[in-house]
């Protein structure tokens, strides 16, 4: 697409300048200092000193490997489920939404303009052990008396899926909406089979949306802590909860920072592998 040979042009630099500058000053610089913190030793009252203490990394890796891998697994599940849930919806809005496409987008996001705590409390009211849903099913003997949703991994996953659905649906919509309807009709005629037409034309063309949606879902979901905090039980602690606690409660900045960079490293590697699998290098940028 942008592969035509051209003279050097200032345009791309001018386009990226404001955003890149912002990210440099307010993200890269602070994160760089944070990176050096991850090699410090000490405690918050006597101060932390830079000693190149790389053991912070191995320490946290051995201590929190369970939570780390649990988070990655949760992230994968959430990404897959939100993808399956939102693709048909995004497809329908993009192809058949007609004049009201933008309004559907707004509808998908409206619920997320309300405070997280209120939304979560609502789910807890609906999913409590004796709630209108579970209590009724138990009353009809469709569920065992001890059955519970809250404080299980199901609850954490459901919370994550609910909260990240729009992050998947929007990029999918954006990619699908771009497609030329006549192309699709041509494909339908050509392959004489709707499944074939979908697999050979629609799906490949929507891959940039799948990729973008997966990024927006997987990356923040892996690092999320609040769903596990409010909906989870004793065996659903995610790495985000550990990091949060290291920073806020334990004031152990070096270990918290080391854990964060470990997580970020794993995510970045995962993302680049994923880009490779999806094929085109163009997807990543």
């Amino acid at each position, binding site marked *: 697409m942008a592969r035509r040979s051209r003279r050097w042009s200032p345009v791309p630099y001018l386009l990226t300048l404001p955003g890149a500058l912002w990210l440099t000053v307010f993200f890269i610089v602070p994160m760089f200092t944070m990176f050096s913190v991850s090699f410090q030793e000490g405690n918050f009252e006597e101060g932390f000193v830079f000693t190149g203490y790389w053991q912070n990394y191995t320490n946290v890796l051995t201590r929190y490997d369970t939570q780390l891998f649990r988070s990655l697994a949760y992230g994968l599940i959430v990404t897959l489920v939100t993808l399956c849930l939102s693709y048909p919806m995004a497809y329908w809005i993009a192809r058949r939404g007609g004049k009201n496409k933008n309004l559907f987008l707004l509808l*998908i996001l409206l619920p997320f303009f309300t405070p997280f705590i209120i939304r979560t409390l609502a789910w807890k009211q609906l999913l409590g052990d004796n709630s209108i849903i579970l209590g009724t099913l138990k009353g009809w003997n469709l569920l065992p008396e001890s059955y519970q949703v809250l404080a299980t991994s199901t609850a954490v996953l459901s919370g994550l899926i609910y909260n990240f659905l729009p992050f998947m649906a929007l990029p*999918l919509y954006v990619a699908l909406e771009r497609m030329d309807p006549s192309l699709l009709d041509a494909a339908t005629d050509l392959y004489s089979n709707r499944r074939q037409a979908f697999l050979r034309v629609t799906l490949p063309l929507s891959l940039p949306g799948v990729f973008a949606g997966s990024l927006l879902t997987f990356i923040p979901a892996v690092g999320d802590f609040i769903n596990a905090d409010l909906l989870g039980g004793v065996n659903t602690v995610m790495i*985000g909860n550990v990091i949060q606690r290291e920073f806020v409660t334990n004031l152990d900045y070096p270990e918290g920072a080391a854990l964060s960079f470990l997580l970020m490293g794993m995510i970045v590697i995962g993302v680049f592998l994923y880009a490779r699998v999806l094929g085109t290098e163009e997807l990543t940028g």
Partner: protein
Amino acid sequence: MATQVETKPTAPPAPGPHKERRKKRAWILPTYTGVIIAYLFIPILVMIMFGFNEPAGRYNFQWEGFTTKWYNPDRLLEFEDLNEAVKNSLLIGVISTFVSTVFGSLIALALTRHRFRGRAGLNLGLFLPMASPEVVLGVALLALFVSLNVNTGFVTIVISHVMFCISYVVVTVKARTSGFDRSLEDAAKDLGADPWTTFWTVTFPLIFPGILAASLLAFALSVDDYVITSFNAGGTVTIPLWVYGASRIGVPPQVNVMGTLLFGIGVIYVLVSIFRGRRQGAVPSPPVKAG
């Protein structure tokens, strides 16, 4: 958002041998979409309902009886810190959405339409803010502000929100601009349009759905952020901060009412737009170019 932007007028499905079957199944996807949207709305219904509750104590957890008293302006606006938090959240949301959408869209354009040195680095620099745990971003930024002797408050909240929204905007807009067909732009140029006109009449309408989706996402991220905001808020209170703090004593029904009203404004907007669209006729209108 009232301007309808479509790359092409939605053509009626071309007649063909599959038309019959397609018709039979035509109800599946719209029903499915309706179900998903209803699912997203479930907690909102509970929130609205408890805005009409008359709690016996200070906790608004259990249905005790119907009342509309929280809608009385005197009661609704009873907590001035909550009022201020609502105002702050909306203002911060709008400003950081605008700034991050502009910055992010420009980066997305540059990344998908130009080859230049530093692309790989820029890509990495865009993934990392999304991959960083929020608390790290919050703490690191606060340390920066303190070292620069900047007092935390409204401005620093906006700065942090723009920072974490940019990546989301870039990724969303890029889903639109990658694989971008430049023939239309070239055609416009061939017709003698200058770059500025080309951008506003051809490029912008083409990528607008991406920008719109991105800005909605950015707004949702901004108004609902707790962790990063809590570190960089100083004396400024936003909705999530106030509600979180109040949850120790009991979140008052006024929070539900405020949420309901904000939600209601959105819904009314949607309904009015649909109604207006209907009145203009069922025939697809020609694409309206923004700008």
